[in-house]
């Protein structure tokens, strides 16, 4: 598998207030690569910066610094025209709220026609119809049941499938799925998730699966990236990260997930750890909450290093540098 996307030292700082305002380093010096046909989970809690990374890759917002290379080309240098003509043909996205992704005044068919108008303007009615029908059938929908309907007449699961069908109409090389199944019920969620896997298997589409749900990330992805407050704390082969979590944050996160196969011990109420000015910490962002914190952790930012093959952690407990 060759390299498809490379993110280098990506940083996004949001500032608040006019003079003497404060900074939120939503994404802070993040680097990772994605190979062709790879499914990567970007996992984190709210405020971890996972969604910002998705938006940066999609060029929906501009980074403060850093580079994004897609097939070796600098995405940040693309003009608007290049983005539209080229980049978005190859990089598509599906977001969390399917109801917000449709115009409620139009039937859902329109979302397909917009894609045709932009990318395949010469297709005639018949060809368009055939492509739409094929795409819908592939995502497990009956075209007769959904075409000609308004968004409010369909369920969230159906709408999300339509969006995936639409994104995949272009057979993109990269699909960014930002919490794409979080709003769906358990009984329909897994099938939508399977669709992403099926497409990877069939067309080699890489998927960046942005999620807060560790169980879903574990199920679908080859590689997992765990984020905390704008930084990557741990990443690597999904099995290794989940079965041998190294970073204290990852360990705590995994212990907190209710899983049907894992028993829980009640351990009593622990105090809420004050985070304070987490973005001004020079060292590890997790230091104020970390049970194994050392003095060094507040001053020196730990860098990611490979502890075992394809398993990286940024924590002073494991040496490095």
């Amino acid at each position: 598998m060759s390299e498809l996307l490379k993110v280098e030292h990506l940083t996004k700082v949001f500032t608040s207030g006019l003079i003497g305002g404060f900074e939120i380093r939503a994404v802070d010096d993040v680097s990772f690569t994605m190979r062709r046909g790879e499914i990567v989970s970007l996992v984190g809690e709210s405020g971890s910066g996972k969604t910002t990374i998705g938006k940066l890759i999609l060029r929906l917002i501009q980074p403060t610094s850093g580079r994004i290379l897609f097939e070796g080309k600098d995405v940040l240098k693309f003009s608007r025209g290049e983005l539209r003509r080229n980049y978005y043909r190859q990089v598509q996205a599906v977001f969390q709220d399917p109801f917000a992704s449709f115009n409620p005044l139009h039937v859902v068919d329109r979302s397909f026609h917009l894609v045709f108008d932009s990318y395949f303007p010469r297709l005639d009615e018949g060809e368009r119809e055939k492509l739409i029908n094929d795409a819908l059938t592939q995502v497990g929908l009956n075209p007769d049941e959904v075409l000609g309907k308004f968004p409010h007449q369909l369920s969230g699961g159906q709408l999300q499938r339509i969006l995936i069908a639409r994104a995949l109409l272009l057979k993109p090389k990269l699909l960014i799925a930002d919490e794409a199944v979080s709003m769906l019920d358990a009984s329909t969620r897994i099938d939508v998730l399977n669709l992403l896997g099926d497409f990877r298997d069939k067309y080699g589409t890489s998927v960046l699966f942005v999620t807060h749900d560790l169980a879903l990330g574990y199920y679908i992805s080859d590689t997992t990236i765990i984020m905390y407050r704008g930084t990557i704390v741990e990443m690597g082969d999904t099995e290794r990260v989940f079965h041998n979590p190294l970073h204290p944050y990852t360990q705590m996160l995994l212990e907190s997930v209710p899983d049907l196969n894992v028993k829980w011990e009640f351990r009593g109420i622990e105090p809420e750890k004050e985070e304070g000015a987490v973005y001004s910490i020079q060292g590890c962002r997790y230091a104020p909450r970390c049970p194994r914190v050392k003095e060094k952790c507040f001053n020196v930012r730990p860098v990611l290093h490979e502890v075992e093959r394809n398993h990286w952690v940024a924590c002073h407990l494991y040496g490095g540098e």
Partner: protein
Amino acid sequence: MAMLTVEDLKIYYATPFGHVKAVDGVSFEVREGEVFGIAGESGCGKSTLVHSLILRKPPMVHMGGKALFKGRDLMRLSKEESRKIRYTELSIIPQYAMNALNPTKKIKDIVWDLAREHGHTDREEVERLLRERLKMVKLSEKVADMYPVELSGGMRQRATMVVSTLLNPDLLIADEVTSALDVTTQRVVIELLHHFMREGIVKSIIFVTHDLALLDKIADRMMILYAGKVVEIGPTEEVINEPSHPYTQLLLSSLPRMGIQYRKQKLRGIPGYPISLLNPPKGCRFYTRCPYALDKCPSEEPKLVKVGEEHYAACHLLGGEDQ
């Protein structure tokens, strides 16, 4: 001993197209000293059910059945009576608990308003209790003098839970309290509820969620709803490990768990979508999605059948005509 006994409860929503039968003949009991879980997907009626116990307002209509709480029928209480028992006997933590506190009042003033309304006269006494409880949930006593906006999300969550349990309600209803939370905060909430029970601050909890894995950790008994009907009810461990109703079985087998990866073993969801509650079928409401549906399923309603000690499921496959 039963704290709450719900019998054949029917709660509909009045719409211009007719009644939406959101809760349609539901019966169960919540015992003293237990955490009772109610699970189901969106539209199954779980939220309607618990909210109808506290406050019914249009378009919600009570169409029949009883909800006996410590001997009184909650469906027949006057506004004044239900206001009186709220917080002192029956309390609810709403879904967006973090934002449920009045932002213009200090925590101690919110609490005092509440206590005064329920006949407390000693302000110092109430504040002392508040500070004690804040300490119990590992918050600083100073939180009492703060406004909700001064608290971080996690702290506000704890404070809200202290407020809703301050007057020691016998029955605490937690409606999807953890769904919008990060897993680490969710874990804290579960620990808090567990602690409230152990300390006897609340006697019983109804925990409503769509997350079966979470119920597995906290509930003693649980009930699964589908399209306004009870499909299965029993001890949590049995329902999770030996589900009897096809819906419960399929739902559980669609859940991701540690050790199962797409590359090696594919999970399957349940095909199809829930039926409309405006005109539900006479028979089983799951038959449209059930892979084992029999000829009689669309027309004959399955009754709850005993499948184990205290474990019941409503499915024709389980036989039992007259339970």
